[in-house]
């Protein structure tokens, strides 16, 4: 019998694309998979268990080993810097991390404020640019910060640029491209090697 595997899935935006991808790779997932409110879904015929987590938390579950595999955005991985294997670029939910702000503005020389949901990414980006900045952590609606004067710049993910545009903001720099990745716990990667390799191969085949 092949060993039982736990996969951490991100709720929300990435979930549908990820579920579709698994189906395409030949995994038989039940129909209620998509609109279930359950946090744990077992798929016995595949010997799989899915846990549904906040996207930011997927890598945490995987690092601690309570999930063997996970599907996580590269943005989260850059922010959290967890000790997990990044096995595959699934090439879904593409977007990018960018610096944005009000048009035609310069950031002040002394301790400019940067608002972001990604304080680590923002901090290391500006440090690499040789800028000393103060980071303000926000949990959502980041675009609000420059509009209302909380911060001069924001660091956030941009997919179409529509939200920025509608709020009268412009992009100043592109930090990193983001897609979803298949990640693995370092111990599971060894102990459940065969099973994980099989899943990686099946997914790799359908990624264009």
């Amino acid at each position, binding site marked *: 019998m092949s060993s039982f595997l736990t996969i951490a899935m991100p709720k929300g935006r990435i979930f549908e694309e990820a579920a579709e991808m698994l189906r395409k790779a030949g995994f038989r997932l039940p129909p209620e998979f998509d609109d279930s409110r359950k946090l744990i879904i077992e798929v016995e015929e595949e010997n799989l268990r899915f846990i549904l987590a906040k996207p930011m938390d997927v890598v945490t579950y995987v690092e601690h080993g309570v999930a063997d595999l996970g599907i996580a955005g590269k943005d989260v991985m850059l922010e959290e810097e967890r000790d997990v294997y990044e096995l595959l670029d699934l090439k879904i939910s593409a977007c990018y991390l960018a610096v944005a702000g009000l048009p035609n503005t310069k950031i002040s020389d002394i301790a400019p404020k940067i608002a972001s949901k990604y304080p680590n990414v923002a901090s290391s980006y500006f440090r690499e640019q040789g800028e000393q900045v103060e980071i303000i952590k926000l949990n959502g609606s980041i675009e609000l910060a420059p509009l209302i004067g909380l911060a001069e710049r924001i660091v956030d993910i941009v997919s179409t640029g529509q939200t920025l545009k509608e709020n009268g903001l412009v992009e100043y720099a592109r930090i990193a491209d983001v897609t979803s*990745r298949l990640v693995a716990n370092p111990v599971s990667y060894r102990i459940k090697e065969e099973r994980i390799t099989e899943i990686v191969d099946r997914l790799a085949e359908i990624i264009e």
Partner: protein
Amino acid sequence: MTKPFMFEKPLGMRDTLPELYETKAAVRNKMSDEIKKWGYQFIETPALEYYETIGEASAILDQQLFKLLDQQGHTLVLRPDMTTPIARVAASKLLNQRIPLRLAYSANVYRAQQREGGRPAEFEQMGIECIGNKSTSADAEMIALMADVLKAAGLEKFKITIGHIGFVQELFLSILGNEERAAVLRKFLYEKNYVGYREHVKSLTLSSIDKQRLIEFISLRGGENTLTKALGLLEGEHGREQLSELQELAVQLKEFGVDQYVSLDLTLVSHMSYYTGTLFEVYAGGVGSPIGNGGRYDNLLDKFGWDASATGFGIRMDRLVEAIGEIQEADVPECILFSPERRKEALDFAKQKRAEGIMVTIQDINAVENVDAYTRTFSDVHLFVGNGGRVSNE
């Protein structure tokens, strides 16, 4: 910062309560017995060391060190690993008489936690170091002994993955030409970022054959055919010597009878930057991080003035106990409750019990508020109260 509550501890510090203490003690004894049977001698080193010596020679990141100042203003560190202090002791003339040296330790090490709880900042390691021994048979001995120690501890299922950092280095250098470019690629391996590794290789200006060699490198893991596959990636002499070392190691591990526990992974790169040759990690189901690791470090002793090769391993006791999964019941003592007028009688009885090897608690009944609740926590209760005879109740 707010003032801590009285029960709080610094981030990552843990208390060990009786059940866990007994479990750890039992496991520790079984392990140290096994290590001694292989002719290793245990030593202790101080918890505090100089930052300039141990702090800098150790492979632990600076921000993970606990630092403090002594009264002369020297910066001290709480030892972040045991290999470096042992290298310091071994390099001093004190122990230079019997080489190769075989030393063992069981000690707490300290690594500050950056993020959150869930991971200890102080943890016990048990391990060994074999110093002044550059033969492959020393590498094999490490792995065989580690397997024996884990079995002695009661762990049945585990997996040891072996790599060779020297091979990685030779292969990368021969393809990429210089250390800087090799270091970039090594960093991807260390960060376990295979996606980034593949993308980086694609972006390099290399012949498509060389790119293919680098891409195929990351699938060099598994059983014995891994070495054959690795050999196929080589051009010229670079890396051949390291592969034949691994070949030899595989033969010896069979002779030791531990080959069923091991597999190869040539992409294994440890966070311990002092490793120079074969290195290994050991994993057990149910624990999300390696329970131990080790390898060859031929340059560390040089930092303490003795050019000697060495190899060793360390096992994380907290993770091992978690992997074994059985918590030992703490032995419950018997209780003797006495009233002051019969104290002498009670004390004599306690002495007799202890001589028989039985654990007994003696307690003045007048100091106990709730006798029923108190006595319930003991395996047996003996009363020396009032004028009657001794009463025993289960």
